[in-house]
């Protein structure tokens, strides 16, 4: 391994897993009150986003110019935007998109990371060193700089944002999985299985992955939070999800308007709180998962 410092840090963050999911996982997770609250919130937001557009009497897209820029009222709890659309409805619809983008991006990064991590750890040798060199390379470029350059080149769209965030964040999962795979592969029973000529594909699926997925789950959970923040930051720079499609990022972007920031807080309060609380909840969940999954952290 090239960077002992980095290795050390990865160990300092207490995500060293030895066992499969330890017994009593749920009990311990639920005892982490903040994590539990976070999970409840995330579930509520998720369900709300899925259901609200059907419940809301308003169309999140169709303009209604006579109703433009209304202040909050019973009819429109968060007021209306410049085109007269109900902001609360759009917050929920935006939640669908923001969450979907973050999940899709993380699915890509976790998938790619797992694949590369398994390949590096299981194969070892030159495969390992090439993959790890590439990992180092990607980790050395400030992610957001590359993100900006890429999005401005490919053009901002949901698809591109997902792809680019996904393709630029696989390094963490890859390192984690590789570490796990290495520790599993050295177990005597795996060595025995390899020696007895068991097919490598099945070996990986049967024995290696089940041991490696736990840290990936934790990393992915936190990855979702980071992807959300990345999407918001891209939207701020005008490189994120493009209107009319609402996302929390581009709705929060309205607060860039000084007048909106100062005089019309209801416009940004919804998406702002949604992002902050969701990210916070996910972070808590990650923390809880970590505690629940890692026996060492139970002190």
């Amino acid at each position: 391994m090239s960077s002992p410092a980095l290795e050390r840090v990865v160990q300092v963050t207490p995500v060293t897993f030895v066992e499969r999911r330890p017994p009593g996982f749920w009990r311990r997770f639920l005892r982490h009150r903040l994590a539990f609250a976070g999970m409840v919130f995330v579930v509520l937001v998720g369900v709300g986003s899925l259901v609200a557009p059907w419940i809301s009497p308003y169309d999140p897209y169709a303009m209604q110019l006579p109703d433009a820029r209304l202040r909050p009222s019973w009819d429109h709890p968060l007021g209306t935007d410049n085109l007269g659309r109900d902001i609360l409805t759009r917050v929920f619809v935006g939640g669908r998109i923001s969450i979907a983008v973050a999940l899709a991006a993380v699915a890509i990064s976790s998938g790619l990371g797992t694949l590369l991590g398994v390949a590096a750890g299981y194969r070892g040798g030159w495969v390992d060193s090439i993959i790890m060199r590439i990992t180092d390379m990607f980790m050395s470029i400030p992610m957001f700089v590359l993100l900006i350059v890429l999005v401005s080149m490919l053009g901002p769209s949901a698809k591109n944002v997902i792809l680019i965030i996904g393709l630029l964040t696989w390094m963490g999962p890859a390192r984690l999985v590789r570490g796990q795979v290495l520790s599993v592969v050295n177990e005597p029973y795996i060595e025995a299985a390899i020696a007895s000529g068991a097919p490598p594909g099945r070996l990986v699926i049967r024995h290696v992955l089940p041991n490696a997925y736990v840290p990936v789950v934790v990393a992915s959970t936190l990855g979702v939070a980071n992807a959300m923040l990345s999407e918001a930051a891209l939207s701020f720079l005008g490189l994120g999800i493009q209107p009319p499609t609402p996302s929390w990022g581009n709705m929060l972007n309205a607060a860039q308007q000084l007048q909106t920031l100062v005089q019309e807080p209801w416009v940004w309060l919804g998406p702002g709180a949604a992002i902050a609380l969701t990210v916070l909840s996910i972070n808590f969940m990650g923390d809880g998962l970590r505690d629940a999954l890692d026996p060492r952290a139970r002190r």
Partner: protein
Amino acid sequence: MRKYLIQRLLHSLVILLGVSVLVFTLVELAPGDIVDSMISPEMFVTPEVKEQLRREYGLDEPAPIRYVRWLGRAVQGDFGYSLASRRPIRDIILDRLPISLQLVGFALVISVVLGIGTGVIAAVKQYSWIDYLVTLFAFSWLSVPGFFLGMLMIYIFAVRLNWFPAFGTSTAGAENPFLDRLHHLVLPGVTLGLELTAALTRYTRSSLLEVLHSDYMTTARAKGLRERVVIVRHGLRNALIPIITVIALRLPYLISGAVVIETVFQWPGLGFLTLTAANQKDYPLIMALALAVTVVVVASSLIADIAYSLVDPRIRYGD
């Protein structure tokens, strides 16, 4: 040790080379070029004129040739000219680098002081209300988008309270340029540093907790040393080792954050320049910037490793 250093250096070079190939390839794949972006939508220029401009900028040669040529010069510190401003890129970067370093340095100092300070307090008073408060704040800073925080900062501390300037690095005709710069640094510096502060708080806390519960601390306490001495002399010193590394390794995040924060606060550093260059499709500048920033990151991780090997005798090399 020397062998390790050489190995580590070579490794860094390989990374830089890889990054250069990566960046060049990306730029190659991008649609449009500087000639397209130079021409404003309200003008109409014949395709022949555009072709001529492309020839003038040397954009008509095959990619590998341009890569080798570019790399050969880049090694000598010559990144060519920015297509948009026609100034030597080295000059532009050298102009901007100090401005960015001031911001990043200021943010770094703030977060180290605040982060380690609150982390120690939280660890020492584990599970007290102060611990929860610190943890809550740390999590909160990590959850609010930086640009949004920046805008709130501008609104509260610049527009409303008028304590600090809202943007820029200096005031025309300031009497004391140093104090003026410091005055301008506060808002962007603090905003940029908050994320690292939060991260450091958490690392310090968990790292110190780990150390505090270790056997030699118990031994130290058993020797009858006062708790404060124990914590500072034995605990913090050992806990600091990984924290130093965290700082070095968090640098890419800090630089990434600087892109957004510099944009919000109009801080004319490298981050701001990156966004402009990307928007203008100023490819030579983009390549040089990506490489320059990567050099900073690689160098800092190299330094971190060396520092690490010096302070932590447990690390063995050559494996």
